């Protein structure tokens, strides 16, 4: 196979989300990739294996027997000071859980693409956000993408942010809706990416001349200090994100923000979305506004660090916010719903919107314009958010109580 010389070969312009993720890692000149295949992530690492095999810089693609080992390899390589990438989904991400904590606590700028897939049982390969949001408290930054272009750009942005803040970053895309859907993509020139993302300069790394052990026992005197530093580093990353997005925009012309808003200023109802649903919501909002309905949209792109301050600014004075959650923290709310409520709690009561929670689209159930219009309608007609959480599209009506035979239901 021939070596790809950066800047000399016209890259493909139609890519699936997974191919875009792989190209993002390749253009970032990733040095160690370790991954274990799982539907619907598989084509990310297939594409990346092919690309890195042709790379003209030293790199290793390490095959392993589980996601736990994949993340362990990434951690080891990242301690070694090199740029490290993996991708996974659902059960695979859950299996990594212990080591996700390790990567964050170890302050290692690993980048992971998670293809959002519902958790089993029942077995499902289709999209929802339960897998990535279950890793909310591991200390990883999380970005939710809404298009194939988003994915490609965000893998590169993730390396930049991760290495600047010494924290790991997760880039999230929806199973099939994004991962296996091809869209026209503008590929940045390798030289441009190199300018934006210079070679990794690790804050610390393994040195055989000065052997040391990482992650050893840390007593009560200092443990809390180190955790506080992780927390504050994530907060600083939130502050730095607009600047880094700005640099990317100057380079590529594409602008992003941790929170993106449309038509919020005069809105009666604002939809709050994340992931691929956001692009459907944009269409719905445009359609409804053409009918003179005052509907707005807020897309939360950065989930960790949580952009609370920006959300308070954007939603100040908005009467009603309908939060769409493709996930559920069982026994409480959808997760974006509860996060938004906690973020807006500090607002003056007069300026604070009423917040309506909607859970929908679990296990890959399609979320189309009709479902979103239903959410808008329900929010308009209800004076108060009661119940706090409404399940959209659950089709079975209530019936009389009955005894269930074991295993039938």
């Amino acid at each position, binding site marked *: 196979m021939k070596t790809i010389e950066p800047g000399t070969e016209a890259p493909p312009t139609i890519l699936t989300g997974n191919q875009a993720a792989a190209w993002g890692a390749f253009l970032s000149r990733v040095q160690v990739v370790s991954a274990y295949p799982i539907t619907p992530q598989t084509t990310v690492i297939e594409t990346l294996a092919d690309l890195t095999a042709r790379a003209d810089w030293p790199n290793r693609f390490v095959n392993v027997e589980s996601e736990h080992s994949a993340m362990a390899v990434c951690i080891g390589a990242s301690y070694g000071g090199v740029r490290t990438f993996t991708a996974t989904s659902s059960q695979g991400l859950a299996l990594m859980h212990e080591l996700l904590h390790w990567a964050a606590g170890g*302050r290692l700028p690993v980048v992971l693409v998670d293809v959002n897939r519902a958790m089993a049982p029942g077995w499902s390969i289709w999209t929802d956000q339960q897998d990535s949001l279950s890793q909310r408290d591991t200390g990883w930054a999380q970005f939710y993408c809404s298009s194939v272009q988003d994915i490609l750009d965000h893998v590169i942005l993730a390396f930049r942010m991760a290495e600047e803040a010494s924290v790991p970053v997760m880039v999230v895309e929806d199973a099939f809706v994004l991962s296996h859907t091809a869209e026209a993509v503008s590929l940045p020139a390798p030289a441009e990416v190199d300018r934006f993302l210079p070679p990794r300069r690790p804050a*610390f790394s393994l040195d055989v001349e000065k052997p*040391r052990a990482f*992650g050893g*026992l840390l007593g009560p005197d200092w443990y809390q*200090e*180190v955790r506080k530093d992780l927390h504050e580093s994530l907060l600083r990353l939130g502050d730095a994100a607009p600047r880094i997005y700005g640099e990317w925009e100057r380079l590529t012309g594409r602008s992003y923000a941790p929170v993106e808003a449309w038509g919020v200023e005069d809105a009666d109802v604002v939809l709050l979305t994340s992931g691929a649903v956001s692009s459907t919501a944009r269409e719905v909002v445009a359609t409804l506004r053409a009918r003179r309905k005052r509907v707005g949209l807020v897309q939360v792109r950065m989930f960790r660090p949580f952009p609370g301050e920006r959300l308070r600014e954007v939603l100040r004075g908005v009467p009603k916010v309908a939060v769409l959650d493709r996930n559920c923290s069982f026994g409480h709310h959808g997760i974006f719903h509860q996060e938004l409520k906690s973020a807006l709690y500090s607002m003056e009561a007069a300026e604070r919107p009423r917040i309506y929670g909607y859970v929908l689209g679990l296990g890959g159930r399609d979320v189309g314009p009709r479902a979103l219009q239903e959410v808008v309608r329900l929010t308009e007609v209800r004076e108060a958010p009661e119940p706090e959480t409404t399940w959209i599209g659950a089709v079975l009506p209530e019936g009389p109580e009955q005894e269930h035979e074991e295993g039938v239901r």
Partner: protein
Amino acid sequence: MKIARGRVQFETRQDLPLSANSLGATDWNRTGSWKYLEPFHRDLTPPCSDRCLADVDVVAMMRRVEAGRWEEAVRGVLPANPFPAVTGRLCPHPCTAPCNRKAHGGGIDVRAVEREVGDWKLRHRVRPVLPPEILPSVHVVGSGPAGLAAAVTLRTLGHPVVVHEAAEEAGGMLRWSAPAFRLPIDVVHAEIEWVKDLGVRIQTSTPVLRDDYEGFGPAVLALGLGRSRGLGIPGEDLPGVHDACRFLADLRRGERPDLGQRVAVIGGGNTALDAARSLLRLGAEPVVIYRRSEREMPAFREAVAEAREEGIPFRFHEVPVALEPAKGGGLLLTIRGTVPGEPDESGRPRVLPGPGGVTVIEVDAVVKALGEELSEELLPRGVEAKGGVLVVDDRWRTGRPGLFACGEAAPGGGRSVAESIRDGRLCAIALHEEVAGAPLPADHPLRRLPDRDPRIAKFKDLNMAWFAGDPPEAPRRLAPALRAGSFDPVEEGLGTDRARTEAARCFKCGTCTGCDTCLVYCPDFAIERRPGGGYAVNLEYCKGCGVCVEECPRAAVHMRRASS
């Protein structure tokens, strides 16, 4: 960061490292208290070293060769085996039978590596450290492998040594029996020169008579068996009936005896095969006649296989019963079939007459290779023989005070050169201890093997994650079709480079090579290098996880119940 009262202190947030890391074991959490098992380093016995006929520590030799430390390799081998260039060519190498490498790419060719060690010794004239000759002088009667090994051992222990040899040149069977295609004569000459160079005096053409022993102090009797066994059949004395030993000795003298075209070689030992294969090389057509089956042949399996490669026919379960002159000048050999009977005292089936009739074959010559027996008339007074074997006690002492015996005529003698060399060494040590009045220290290099657990390291004990399955470095061998007419060695040497590659393939089963794997994998920094080699486990921190045991490539780390 500063350290105050043994504790790390940080002044500011920026002073704090990003992530917890440590330069050694943590001081205050002695994880060693968690364990109920603890690891310890102890070498197991490598299967090859265990089986070596000459007590060579094969694995130690492989480590030195792998590292290219040739002189050290020679010096390591010499105490057990002063003649690695000889055994590196003649040894039946039972060490390779249990080689664990067989299951992973192919067994190690130990003999080929040993041969390079031996040739290096001769090329570079490596001499053992020689103490001054301050101990009583010792006479050695016989200069075969056992006598020479005894002489060298005694010399390295500080005895002046005189070797007496009846023949015109020293070397015994190495000089007069081994054919050139197995052991070139210049190797023998070089070894004899090397022995002389150590200060051992060798007197050739000097038969030792009964009375001569009266003038000896302590002495070693390392006799060969002087007399060939007869066929015991009519016609045995006819012209055209030859003795294999004499035939091989004539060849070794540089003659090319012409016995005729069709030659029957009678016998199944190494001498019979050496004779038959030599005849083939002289242009004759030998046939080997043996009274039992191929399995019962005393010859080495390798020699039988090579003879078969060369196309030499075998007639098994047949025994000669008569010889008479043939009309055209040859011999008519009458042979009869045999059947196996009950096992005899050697465990082999007795040979009984078969049911069929007799066969007569016409040959030009017959070569007798039926083994040899002791000529008792030359034995010194006080030395007894029983069943054709010298009587010695478990310390190699004959009935004559001060006279020790080893070699072909002693118990266990005549099986292989390697065993003769070992017996010569052990006999010399026994003599030395008696003369010195004290045993050799347990760690003396002439003692057997290093202190190890007697358990043999098995393939399942080893960690194959550390070893590639690369194939052996096989020595080049002369094509069978080219062997008739040529006394060139059948097997070529590996050369030093390929020998190093082969030695590197060796697992070094059961033995610590100082590879640091245990140290590197220990999650608690609890394994430390010991000054002077080896490792120590810091039990204050070792929590008994067993990672070192699991990861050790060669099963040199083990678990036991924790001591505290």
